[in-house]
């Protein structure tokens, strides 16, 4: 019933929009969710939410205007605001919103029909996480479980109408043992694919393991970054540098490096829009998605584009437009990022192992320079963590490091929409306390 109303509303907006501008587009999103918060090891908060929102975009004479609202009664004011916003923007080359076309008949596997946003499913996740964490002397200080279902629609005046439904399950747990902290998390589109016992167990084990850490001498070491630490650093530095907008605006390390073999020959980095939680057959402005091979065997091969940036720089959209909910205008983003290459055993030779880093967002996104504090760091040797390191600051340059990777672990970890292995580097600077 509600779905029919929304479709009628979208049609209405597009019809009115077509009369006021050359083209119009509606991005619709709605959803519901339930979440539980642990306070210590007890459930302290239980909450539910329903969301609804539309983002309207209009284009007139190459001028683009946007607005958004979460009030269905406000849509005409929102359309009016998008039209006046277009009047202010700088005109640019614009060759039109996407056209309808046939899409591959593929199940993206992002909707779990067995996932229900109910209290008992969420409490079950919490109980299983607590069971996983029991039996250690770590205190549970917090945690959460959330379940969600959502639908998005992208529709435009050319007749594109693409709708996708997704589900999500997420858990996290925070622990402490004396002044040693641990944190773990898991998420998936399918409730059966997250492992609450493992998340609970890992969170507790991290705090316990790091309890009696020894200081490390300042010096140059071999360092292994866990998949989480790799994800933190590439998310802050590497991924923004591959956006076609940053490259063409000359604020990316990769400016002028298309076709250059300036990364390790064992490094492949790609976006696969059909394999992971972030999957979609059309991006959030309706362009059909495709695989993007950013880095192929160390060679910088492609950058990502949305329509606006592609038209401006005489490129083609790579189907990379994403939105942060209905409120945001489309911008260049990623669907499912994979870092891949030849795999090997990287945990045998002695090295400093970093589980996570503190302060990845303070890295210099333009130059790639960073220095971060390590969390749950350890000496790694013979395939296992040997002894904990109390505190260590790691300094380096993300781009320099990726020129010379010592090795990639056998297994990758799925971290939401980023799927990466652990990476081993030599000759990195570590400052002890």
């Amino acid at each position, binding site marked *: 019933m509600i779905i029919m109303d929304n479709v009628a509303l979208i049609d209405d907006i597009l019809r009115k929009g077509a009369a006021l501008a050359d083209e119009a587009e509606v991005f619709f999103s709605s959803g519901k969710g*339930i979440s*539980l918060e642990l*306070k*210590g090891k*007890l*459930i*302290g*908060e*239980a*909450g*539910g*939410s*329903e969301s609804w929102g539309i983002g309207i975009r209009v284009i007139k004479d190459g001028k683009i*205007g*946007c*607005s*958004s*609202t*979460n*009030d269905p*009664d406000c849509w005409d*004011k*929102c359309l009016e*605001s998008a039209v006046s*916003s277009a009047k*202010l*923007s*700088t005109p*640019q080359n614009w060759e039109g919103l996407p056209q309808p076309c046939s899409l591959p008949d593929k199940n993206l596997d992002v909707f779990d029909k067995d996932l229900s946003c109910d*209290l008992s499913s*969420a*409490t079950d996740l919490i109980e299983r996480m607590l069971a996983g964490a029991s039996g250690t002397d770590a*205190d549970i*200080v917090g945690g959460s479980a959330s379940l969600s279902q959502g639908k998005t629609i992208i529709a435009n005046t050319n007749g594109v109408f693409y709708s996708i439904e997704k589900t999500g399950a997420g858990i996290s747990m925070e622990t402490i043992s004396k*002044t040693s*902290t641990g944190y773990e998390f898991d998420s998936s589109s399918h409730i059966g694919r997250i492992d609450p016992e493992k998340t609970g167990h890992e969170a507790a084990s991290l705090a316990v393991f790091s309890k009696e850490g020894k200081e490390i001498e*300042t010096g140059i070491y071999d360092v292994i970054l866990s998949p989480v630490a790799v994800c933190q650093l590439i998310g802050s530095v590497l991924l923004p540098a591959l956006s076609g907008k940053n490259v063409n*605006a*000359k*604020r990316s390390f990769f400016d002028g490096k298309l076709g250059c073999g300036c990364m390790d020959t064992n490094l492949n980095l790609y976006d696969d829009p059909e394999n992971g939680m972030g999957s979609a057959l059309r991006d959030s402005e309706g362009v059909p998605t495709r695989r993007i091979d950013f880095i192929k065997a160390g060679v910088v091969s492609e950058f990502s584009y949305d329509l606006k940036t592609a038209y401006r720089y005489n490129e083609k959209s790579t189907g990379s437009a994403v939105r942060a909910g209905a*409120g945001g*205008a489309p911008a260049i983003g990623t669907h499912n990022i994979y870092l891949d290459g030849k795999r090997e055993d990287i945990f045998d030779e002695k090295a400093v192992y970093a589980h996570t880093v*503190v*302060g990845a*967002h*303070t890295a*210099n996104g*333009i*130059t790639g*320079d960073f*220095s*971060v*504090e390590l969390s749950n760091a350890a000496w790694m040797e013979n395939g296992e963590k040997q002894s904990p390191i109390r*505190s260590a*600051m*790691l*300094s380096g340059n993300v781009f320099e490091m990726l020129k010379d990777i010592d090795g990639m672990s056998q297994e990758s970890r799925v971290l939401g929409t980023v799927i990466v292995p652990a990476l081993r580097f030599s000759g990195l*600077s570590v*400052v002890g*306390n």
Partner: protein
Amino acid sequence: MEEPGYYDIRHVKGISTSIEIDNGVLESATNSFSDTAIMRVLGRRGWGIVTIENFGIKTKKEINEYIALAMRYASVTEEEVTLADCRSGILPMPKIKEDPRGVSLEEKCELLSGIERAAKIEGIINTRANYTEGTGTVNFTDSSGNEYSYEICRSGYSVSAVAKKGDVMQAGRESEHNILGLNLRHKENKGLSAAERAVKLLDAKPAKGGIMDAVLDQELAGVFAHEAVGHASEGDLVKEGVSVLKGMNGQKIANSIINVVDDPTLHEFGFMPVDAEGVLPVRTEIIKNGVLNAFLHNRQTLAAVGNGDAGHARGQAGDVPLVRMSNTFIENGDSSYDEIIAECRDGILLKGSRGGQVDPGRGVFQFNAEYGYVIKDGELSGMVRDVSLTGDILKTLHNIALCADDRIMNPGYCGKSGQSVPVTDGSPHILLRSAVIGGQG
């Protein structure tokens, strides 16, 4: 239906404006409209919470239905909750100089564009400027009969410039945010200063890491006050045992010259006339003459932990209120800036901030300065870039040897549990002995 022990509703209706200019191109100038409410209901043990979009005006019957729904959620919660009795009330709003809502979007675009253009100097290859303005009408009601309503407009801009020479690229950035009215006029000098810094950084050397004495400028020392002291003093973290300050009340945790305050009543960017639980905001002296004096609390953590003041509950529109900082600062000391540099003798001056992060349970913080200067024989010498500071909160507080008398407040946003709230950090210049400095030089 089982009666709730307490409930409150915080409804925020707002319009947000954003302007983005990238290399002279006006990318977007947008108004968006939102209407969200959050209801918290206290069940027998713990909170049931309902987020409601398009809250609008609700009838008594509709409100009762939401209460019943929230009570159903609260049926699975397990935590005993006591709410401290606190003074409810609202502070008067500050006077606005020039109301941003009275200025057309077109004029704001022109003013922002002027700031961005000022950053186009020789050596600069890219400039960007953003303006954000959010007006929210906040309505608070609770089951004890408290009702408050206020409207606040927060606005500000940022400008950044990228410089390039050969293969070397560097960026400079300036930003200002406030609650006292439009701040876009006559700010071209800020665009210029972002650009000049980016150009100067091209010749700066990477900082050399190691343990050394450091002088922190007002902005970075303010980040220290916020990240290292402020977060660790948040009552929810203390209550759950994830703060190194837990159980240390009344103990000497810092050099006696150190006073750290959180004051939501100041008319800075972190100001709020009433907190998200209807409590009258108060100034809280976290560290007084080096002694841990008070924690920041909401009603629940005050009842559970004690030692401190409620009135520090804040939440994003549609989100649960958490214990948050507002305007957090280190008080002035009695040294001068020159004395501090001279006293440092050999070390490093750290300037500006690219942000920071803290693990309050472990007591470890990390932050990054925008740039710095090597201090040699008590004088500034070469400029350095990409320099960071990490440390142990308690050790560092004892190692602050001097505070200057030149405090400045810097506005920004702080993230916690996925919520972002406006805050201000501040400090005078401080001298920090045996600081752990990171850099690649």
